């Protein structure tokens, strides 16, 4: 038991990194995903086509590859070539990748709303933007909570991919200790940490679903 306490500090430090990547990605990729979804359903074919291609690219290649590309290859790309430190590079890759997934969830949600809702709002004089903000999106949120919850929990675990940029997230911290001490206990502790994080998220989303359950459709 004492051993567990001994290895806690580095593991907690790793958890800190994991949580940072998780929270920053979530906060940035959800609004970006919503913006992409709205562009994806735009009547301007060029806009929706571009977003369509973007989503294909981001979902069609591994997140790890995207991260490696942004960190190692982006500096050599003409015009936009910039060298990002490891943490920002990881964040950019995660945000761009997750926004694509969130965009598809938002799009499905928006398109599941009955046309009558738009017409009802329209004859009352609401503009498209007002209809989206006041009528459609509040209903979309209720419908997409389960897939958003799924994606969010996946994100917690995906953060472990940042080890490829040599960043010390929870899993890499655990692995370091495993290799040093020849014991698998750190893995078990790390698993417990992941479970606690996903438990908090699961609980949070259940609360949200309950909140939205006040009305039926």
């Amino acid at each position: 038991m004492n051993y567990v306490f001994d290895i806690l500090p580095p593991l907690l430090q790793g958890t800190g990194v994991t949580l940072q990547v998780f929270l920053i990605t979530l906060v940035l990729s959800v609004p970006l995903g919503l913006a992409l979804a709205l562009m994806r359903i735009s009547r301007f074919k060029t806009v929706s086509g571009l977003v369509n291609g973007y989503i294909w690219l981001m979902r069609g290649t591994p997140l790890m590859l995207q991260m490696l590309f942004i960190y190692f290859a982006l500096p050599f790309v003409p015009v936009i070539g910039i060298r990002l430190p490891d943490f920002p590079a990881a964040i950019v890759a995660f945000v761009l990748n997750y926004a694509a997934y969130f965009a598809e969830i938002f799009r499905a949600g928006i398109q599941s709303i009955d046309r009558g809702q738009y017409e009802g709002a329209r004859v009352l004089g609401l503009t498209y933007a007002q209809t989206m903000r006041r009528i459609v999106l509040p209903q979309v949120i209720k419908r997409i909570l389960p897939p958003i919850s799924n994606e969010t929990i996946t994100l917690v675990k995906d953060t472990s991919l940042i080890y490829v940029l040599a960043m010390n997230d929870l899993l890499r911290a655990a692995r370091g200790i495993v290799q040093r001490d020849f014991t698998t206990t750190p893995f078990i502790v790390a698993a417990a940490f992941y479970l606690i994080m996903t438990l908090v998220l699961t609980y949070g989303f259940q609360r949200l679903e309950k909140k939205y359950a006040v009305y039926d459709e």
Partner: protein
Amino acid sequence: MMNDPMIRAVDVHKHFGPVEVLKGVSLDVAKGEVIAVIGPSGSGKSTFLRCLIHLETVHRGTIRIEGETLVSTDAEGHCRYVPDPEIRRICGKMGMVFQHFNLFPHLTVLQNIIEAPMTVKGLRREEIVPKAEVLLKKVGLLEKRDSYPSRLSGGQKQRVAIARALAMEPDIMLFDEPTSALDPELTGEVLRTMRQLAEEHMTMVVVTHEMAFAREVASRAIFMDDGLIVEARPARELFAAPEHPRTKAFLENML
């Protein structure tokens, strides 16, 4: 502008792809008139109503609301709508009630009613809530003000939808088969509310299959078939002695 009709539609054409739905419909509606539009399904009556409030765009013809042009067609046949803000302002003179209510399920009855006055007209909550409550009382649903639509019967939903439209203080009310989705025993309460509106001299255009309502409440009845107005006469006359054989055949089928 005093003599302008509330609605003037001239030679309205509309097609969905190759299918011609409206083949030149013209209609004037005077202030306080209650028009019942009847006819077989697929005759274009709902489409015509939806064109009046720009839920569908016309391909030819003119529509003027209270003397203001919504869409016009020049001599070469080019159909032109006024700019979007104008469309919104002109269509704002009309309220519409749908077959499937289209209430907002995430909002309570009261919130459904005050949403547009607050968002569109910028009214403050304390200004509009008393008005909304008066409207709810009028449709007999004040005690449901904090219920969500899913808790209401179809007839109650439709009465809320009527109150919601009235909260924008329209000059004209359009009804698109307002009782067609209701169980027969629930149509009465909706028709009563509409009859009350008619008695208050609201200008109304009602697409309906309720022949008794059309005969008793409407000032004029219009029979549409195959994208055209076949017969338009005072309601009692049209029902008592239809002139056109198609009207006759339709009414014999319905009654």
